[in-house]
């Protein structure tokens, strides 16, 4: 992977929410380039616009104006349905509250994105899901329902699900926000391992300790990138 190839590009992204009498501007003209293999941390206070920013990148939310291009796709121009298929193959999403489907087992949760996006044959899907669960050390929990797992285990299962379709990008919104420090460390370790496997990770966090450990830290404040710090050499650089 070349350091100079731009995997993700945001140009003048503005997001305004109609919240009643006074519209609320969450993002004010964001410009951003992210390259393949980067581990980017988006840091900021509550209400600063960091979740809105990651939602723009994942296509979960639409910009009011501006352009978002991810892996050559003009995300802002896609319909909801096109976005769903694109997202399933291009970006793995990890949520703060894990968001595993409660009625599916851990294994089935991991299988679901492959099923939706028709990736691999059914037999290959199971093998791949088990491989991913082994990677996150949950193979022995594969047949359990999410409710039977601890928070850390659920988040690791959610990461396995995010990797199901082998997307080049992983977007995580406060992935450790609901975990204790030891578990959070383990999850972060997983992310670091993925970066070494050339995955691009964009992670929203308000944990300053973790923010210190990412390659690029973007400080978001009042809907703008107020500060950008490159904290340590990107893997492979």
């Amino acid at each position, binding site marked *: 992977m070349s350091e100079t190839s731009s995997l993700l590009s945001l140009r003048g992204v503005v997001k305004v929410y109609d919240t009643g009498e006074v519209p609320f501007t969450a993002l004010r003209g964001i410009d951003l380039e992210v390259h393949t293999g980067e581990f980017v941390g988006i840091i900021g206070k509550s209400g600063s616009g960091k979740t809105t920013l990651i*939602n723009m990148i994942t296509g979960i939310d639409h910009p009011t104006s501006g352009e978002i291009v991810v892996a050559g796709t003009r995300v802002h121009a896609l319909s909801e349905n096109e976005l*769903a298929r694109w997202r399933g193959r291009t970006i793995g999403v990890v949520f703060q509250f894990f968001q595993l489907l409660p009625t599916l087992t851990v294994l089935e949760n991991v299988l679901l994105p492959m099923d939706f996006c028709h990736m691999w044959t059914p037999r290959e899907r199971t093998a791949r899901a088990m491989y991913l669960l082994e990677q996150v050390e949950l193979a022995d929990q594969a047949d359990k329902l999410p409710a039977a797992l601890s928070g850390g285990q659920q988040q690791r299962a959610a990461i396995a699900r995010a990797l199901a379709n082998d997307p080049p990008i992983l977007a995580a919104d406060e992935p450790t926000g609901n975990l204790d420090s030891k578990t959070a460390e383990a999850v972060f370790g997983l992310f670091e391992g993925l970066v070494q496997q050339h995955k691009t990770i964009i992670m929203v966090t308000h944990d300053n300790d973790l923010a210190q450990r990412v390659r690029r830290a973007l400080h978001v404040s009042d809907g703008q990138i107020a500060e950008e710090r490159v904290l340590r050499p990107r893997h492979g650089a």
Partner: protein
Amino acid sequence: MRSVRVTKVLRDLSSHWFRTLLVVLSIAIGVFAVGVILGGRQVLVREFDREYAASQPPNAVLYTAPFDERIVRDVLEYPGVEAALGRRSAEVRYSWRGSPGLRTLRVVAYEDLESISVQKVVPEQAGHWPPGRGEIVLESSAKQTGDYRVGDVFTIAREHDDPVGVKVVGFAHDVNAFPAQFSGAETGFVSFATLPDLGLPQTFDQLLVVFDQDGLTQRSASRVAEGIARDVFEANGIAVYATDVPKPGSHFLGDIFKAVSLLLLALGILALALSGFLVTNTVSALMAQHIKQVGIMKAVGGHASQVTAMYLGMVGVYGVMAVAIGLPAATVTGKWFIGYAADILNIRVVSHAPPGWVTALEIAVGLIVPLLAAVVPVHAGTRMSVAHALSAAGVPTTEFGHGRFDRLLGGVRGLPRPVALSLRNTFLRKGRLALTLATLTLASAVVMSVFCVQSSIDRTIDDLDAWWRYDMEIRYERPVDAQVLEREIRAVDGVSDVESWITAPTSLARADGTRNETLVTQGVPADTTFVAPSVTSGRWLEPGDTDAVVVNTDALKAEPDLGVGRRVTLAMLGRERTWRVVGVVKGQMGGPALFTTRDALATCLGDAAVSRSVVKSTTSDAQEQQQTLERIERRLEEAGYAVAETHTVADLRDQVASQLGILVSFLVIMAALLASVGVIGLTGAMSINVIESTREIGVMRAIGATHDSIYRIFTTEGLVVGLMSWALGAVVAYPLSYYLTAGLSQTIGVPLTYRFSWSGVGLWCAAIGVISIVASLAPAFRASQVSVRDAIAYE
């Protein structure tokens, strides 16, 4: 390997079994209601038509002086006649083990009971047919009026001899016989051999004729019947007293049956609409609960069409399960309902199987209606943006408080906190509330309308009471002298006053040359105090009237030419003259009748003999009146009078009430069915409210709410919804019951007097209160059992 999506659908169904049960029951009750109501209607209509057509109903019945088989053969030769049958019919008085006094039995005798070609009789399997000498087979409707059994012996009173015993040897069905529960008299079939034992001659006095059906109308049938009377009977010196020509193909209970049938159809459509509401409501709630999961699935690559297919598939499974429950339940209940209705309407049901399209409709209601109902909420849910779906917590808490009404509710002060919370929770999910209210309101309106119809029937009967200013009535087999007769009756203990009337079968000559032979004229003293007529136009009789007649509304309906001011030619017992219609009085549910002064009728007939006495009692107690009537009958028999029939006005009132009660009993069954749809709807909505409020419940529990407080909040919420539906239903019930009563009145040809039932509204208020609380109990119990930890963790 099974798709994960299919696994998720099946897992969602099984893991939320209570919700699955509610949704399935909601749909199943719709399938059930449609199956029972429409299936019942179709089977009853089909079986009624089949049996009526198979019975070879007569197109004319001639009531004549005695005649024999030779006349029947002549009639069969008459142009346009397809079949003819002579028989003898007489009314006798009898007693049996189940009756304290004497009852009237209509005896029908055939010469050859094994080849009845007109108005066919179908023997039941129990007992035997034909009855031999000294035996009788009862018409099946007798079972509706008493516990008659094969082997019973009837003791029949005879005019000039000791009573004679006749043994019941079986039952037979005659679809054309007037059911015993309506007429108050049982019908029995005997052989000619039994007639002498009953003191009756072995001759015919009725001719039943079937005409060539090609282009047959009531008018053309009337002309052929007149021809037979003139060319066959009168030409042979046999008097024809009356001719009855019914509308071809029209059964005498046809109007009531039509009313019941229409009612069932209307209620079937209503049940269909209600179940549609219910399913829409439930599926909308289901989608509201699943919205976050929809967001997650879309976030991990799920296409809207894939997610839509999953939820429509889930609704499809609900539908299959509902059909699996509703269809057999409707079949079993429908069979019971058809049997119940058939007994009342005196229809013999050969097959209980509903037509194929009803079963197809039931399946469509179970499968297609839920899918149609689900399309909009599923579409809305799956088309929602991922961001919106993920931010939705299932409970639209942020939506409450913006509207004027919400602020108004928020401003209500002085309510206990749990009540205020319940009240506001009720309006939290306005869409669901609207659908739940629509379902319950319609059900409430129908239930209250049924009360109003019953009240209108009661008022109509009260009006009849106002007409009847006497307590007992006696009809004689032959006209008798009034003076001697009244002296005998007055001498009986318990009699306060007596008056006797002349009754004459009357034939109206229509302008087109045909005649109406079904009228009866009553000659009553002009200053009678025994009736209080309710005059709808013109006036009542006055002393000195010599050519005035007053008609009742039934007669006016049958013959619109009988309007006030018209001059009409009436033939009574062979004497024809012109009369002037001076007034119209409200019908007394006894059919078309004309009234004139007793003196005028006596002059017209050339005979002052009376055929009917009406008696006022010294007591208002119905049982004592019955005893007085039995004493009168005994005294008259001792004095040599032949009594044909006696009854108290209380009996008459009961008969009228039982006829109209058929409609009410059908309405009650249907209303109960619709109310149960509403109750299941409320239970479903409340359960879903509880599920959606799990986090709120956890918060309340965390800040000190006890099990009881949570319980109270949810039962109060159910009560508020129930009472709102009651209030709205009462408003809807007024026009609904008015038009329902008017429609029934129009269909059955009985002018019902509308009365809104305030007591019914009050009663339903209490009932819906209890029902709402009961419907909320299970959901409230589940709410009270939610643990704080689970509630706070609930996503």
